[in-house]
């Protein structure tokens, strides 16, 4: 007999996500992931000044706004036929790098760690750390006082096979607390050249409007030096400790294994990317062909269009379902079920994100620093490059990327040329088209822009990492990548489906981004 498991809302992800699985005994037969929020920013942008796209599209996501700001600027620069000032390119690299490392900490500690680490281990803490003592005292008091919601927001939780190694638990709980001020420092680094964070204003087509003065560079360098040890030591060690405590998760949530990534972190001139773009399909790495991307909306809450397969900038013909039609779809067992559309590459669902970036760059052989680090971790954890497409592989990928990005930022910081501009102004192009691609924290991100005869936006489109990962089924019946990852997972206790939550969270879903 088949039963269902529903997790709604999935917390500790960005936005409104519902996951529903049909079970065959204790094994997932099929899964459906629904992005449950729609705003409609792309269509609303029509008629706006082309330069507003950068400020508005970054507001699809407060967790990775800089990626959208940069991609919007890249799209407009493509339409202008220019490249940003070299200083501007470096400042963007430094700022996106900062943002991504901060996001990796947020994802690991704030959102995911406590799916593996036992927070109640703090009750047995006997050391002298003031923060841990404070939390221990508070949890004790909360539990003793018969509160209605004792120790919220840390309880209630799914009861599951948490880590039993006391030292690993305490280290990660301390990391949870210590990561918060470190993340605030990373945000300060974004603010130095972005104005503020989240939602930095200072990136525009042509570069970055904040010039790299000596004092700003010094401030940035000081903060980088303060934060770097936490990333290199504590964060990396905590990820390894969790990976060692849960080695089985290198085999869970594997999905299709098809990987897509865009070229990311160029040099000052916009060439020679630190991370390679490309695709890995059936284990084979190939060059990226952007025109293979289409979007399907068979199971997405939009009125059907003449063609189910739309190319970028054609999706503006889609209209969101009205309330009545939405309910009609919901009452059908094979109805539409997500606001997210289903992007496909050559018709295939693709996983994007840290694991894709690692696997594609590794296979491309373009970055020996990356390959050396990956090989080192592979020996330490007894895994291979193919194991990165898994729950634990994704966590490990983030730790590796954080270390590499730090090294790269330290090098690029010294290449800035104080006194030279970081921004040059160019007229907004009329009747032009442009595309911007880069890697956001959660994977491949592209923006497409088309301007009209007055330089206003005629059409705008974003294809966002979580749109790829969290996509619903397509017209050919292919499940979305995360749906595929969930399939065949064994759930020990249907009332506490932690196995599913761990798989979903390993992809760091961002529904605000995916549907926008």
């Amino acid at each position, binding site marked *: 007999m088949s039963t269902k498991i529903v997790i709604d809302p999935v917390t500790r992800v960005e936005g409104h996500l519902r996951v529903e699985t049909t079970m065959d005994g204790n094994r997932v037969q099929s899964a459906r992931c629904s992005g449950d929020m*729609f*705003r409609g920013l792309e269509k*609303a942008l029509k008629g706006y000044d082309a330069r507003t796209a950068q400020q508005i599209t970054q507001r699809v996501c*407060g967790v990775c706004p800089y990626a959208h700001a940069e991609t919007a600027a890249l799209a407009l620069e493509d339409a202008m036929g220019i490249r940003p000032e070299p200083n501007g390119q470096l400042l963007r690299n430094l700022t996106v790098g900062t943002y991504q490392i901060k996001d990796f900490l947020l994802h690991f500690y704030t959102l995911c760690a406590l799916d593996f680490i036992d927070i109640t281990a703090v009750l047995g803490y006997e050391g002298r750390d003031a923060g841990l003592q404070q939390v221990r005292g508070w949890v004790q008091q909360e539990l003793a006082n018969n509160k209605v919601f004792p120790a919220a927001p840390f309880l209630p939780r799914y009861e599951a096979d948490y880590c039993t190694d006391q030292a690993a638990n305490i280290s990660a709980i301390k990391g949870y607390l210590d990561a918060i001020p470190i993340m605030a420092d990373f945000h300060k680094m974004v603010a130095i050249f972005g104005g503020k964070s989240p939602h930095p204003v200072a990136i525009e087509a042509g570069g970055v409007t*904040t010039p790299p003065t000596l004092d700003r560079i010094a401030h940035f360098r000081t903060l980088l030096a303060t934060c770097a040890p936490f990333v290199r030591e504590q964060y990396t060690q905590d990820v390894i400790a969790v990976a060692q405590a849960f080695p089985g998760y290198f085999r869970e949530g594997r999905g299709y294994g098809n990987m897509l990534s865009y070229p990311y972190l160029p040099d000052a001139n916009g060439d020679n990317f630190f991370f390679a773009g490309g695709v890995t399909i059936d284990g084979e790495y190939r060059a990226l062909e952007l025109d293979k991307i289409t979007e399907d909306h068979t199971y997405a809450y939009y009125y059907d269009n003449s063609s189910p397969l739309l190319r970028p900038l054609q999706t503006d013909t889609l209209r969101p379902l009205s309330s009545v039609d*939405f309910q009609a779809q919901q009452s059908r067992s094979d109805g539409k079920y997500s606001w997210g559309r289903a992007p496909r590459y050559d018709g295939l669902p693709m996983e994007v994100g840290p694991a894709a970036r690692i696997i594609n760059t590794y296979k491309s052989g373009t970055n020996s620093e990356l390959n050396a680090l990956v090989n080192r971790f592979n020996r330490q954890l007894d895994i291979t490059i193919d194991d990165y497409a898994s729950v634990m592989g994704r966590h490990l990928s983030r730790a590796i990327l954080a270390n590499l990005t730090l090294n790269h930022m330290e090098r690029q910081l010294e290449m800035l040329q104080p006194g030279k501009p970081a921004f040059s102004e160019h007229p907004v192009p009329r009747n032009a088209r442009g595309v911007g691609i880069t890697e956001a924290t959660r994977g491949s991100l592209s923006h497409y822009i088309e301007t009209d005869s007055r330089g206003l936006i005629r059409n705008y489109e974003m294809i966002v990492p979580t749109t790829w990962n969290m996509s619903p089924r397509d017209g050919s019946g292919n499940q979305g990548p995360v749906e595929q990852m969930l399939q065949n997972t064994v759930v020990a206790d249907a009332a506490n489906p932690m196995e599913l939550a761990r798989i979903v969270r390993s992809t760091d879903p961002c529904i605000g981004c995916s549907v926008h």
Partner: protein
Amino acid sequence: MMQQEITRRSALKRIFAAIAATGAGSFITFDDLLAADANPRKAINVLWLHGSSCTGCTCSLLDIEKVPVVDILTRFAHMVFHHDLSLATGDQVTETIDKLLESEEPFVLVVEGSIPVRMPHTCMVAHRTMDSWMQRILPKAQACIAAGTCAAFGGVTQMEGMDTGSMGLLQYSYYRGITTPIITLPGCPMKPEHFVYSVLHYSTHGAPPPLDRYGRPRRFFGRTVHDRCVKYADFQENYFSRKIGEDGCLLRLGCQGMVTRSDCMITGYNNNTNVCLRAGHPCIGCSGENFPRRVMFHTYDDTRDIIPRRV
């Protein structure tokens, strides 16, 4: 020791009462509140929900340095549920909310993001629309904090051209006839100091800090960005920047500081690390009632202006 603390506490309480009576409540500083709340009897229950949002305000909250986040969670606010912090997931979330509403425990509701009303099915939690959740929860809250510009005024979710009919909390409560007091903390993202100050004020005084007609704490939103701008002297001398990177007031490059209220130029962002104008970029009006406008940044000779379209 205990005796002393209590005396200090009650003394502070009397002082606050006197300050409030003279209508000068917006002068209570952050440190006053922290001192008064050093030994609270009961942390205020906070229920934090997301409407149509981007989670930027939550990310911003975690950046606070004035009060450590762990202190907020363990001493000042009892975070009954927060979408990005709670370990509770799935049914545990709806059970928690149900239990809170049934328990009659007092709580402050925080909403991040707006509420779509024309197309309520565009924002769902546990298969129910956010609109229906709000109709149930908002009347029971002691007060509601609208965190960020979307929750306060609609922000990007209510920009011209949107179909969803999203509303900020002030408009929403009026539309639904709900009279729960609303404290709006516009800012895209909300500044964490504004939030923690408001929560502390509420838990210390049982009432929000003095507010203006849009529900904004006057302490933070009494003046425009322009009033305190580092470039105000340039403005007065009609010395305008012609392009980015030049000295001078940024008005002719699209600056919206004149029509935007917030304390950005005093306390900056990210613990006063920087703020738009100090970074050399015009204010785009992110904490304003009319954010975002169709033009936010333009060239010196551009004749399009930034005067509000929807009031």
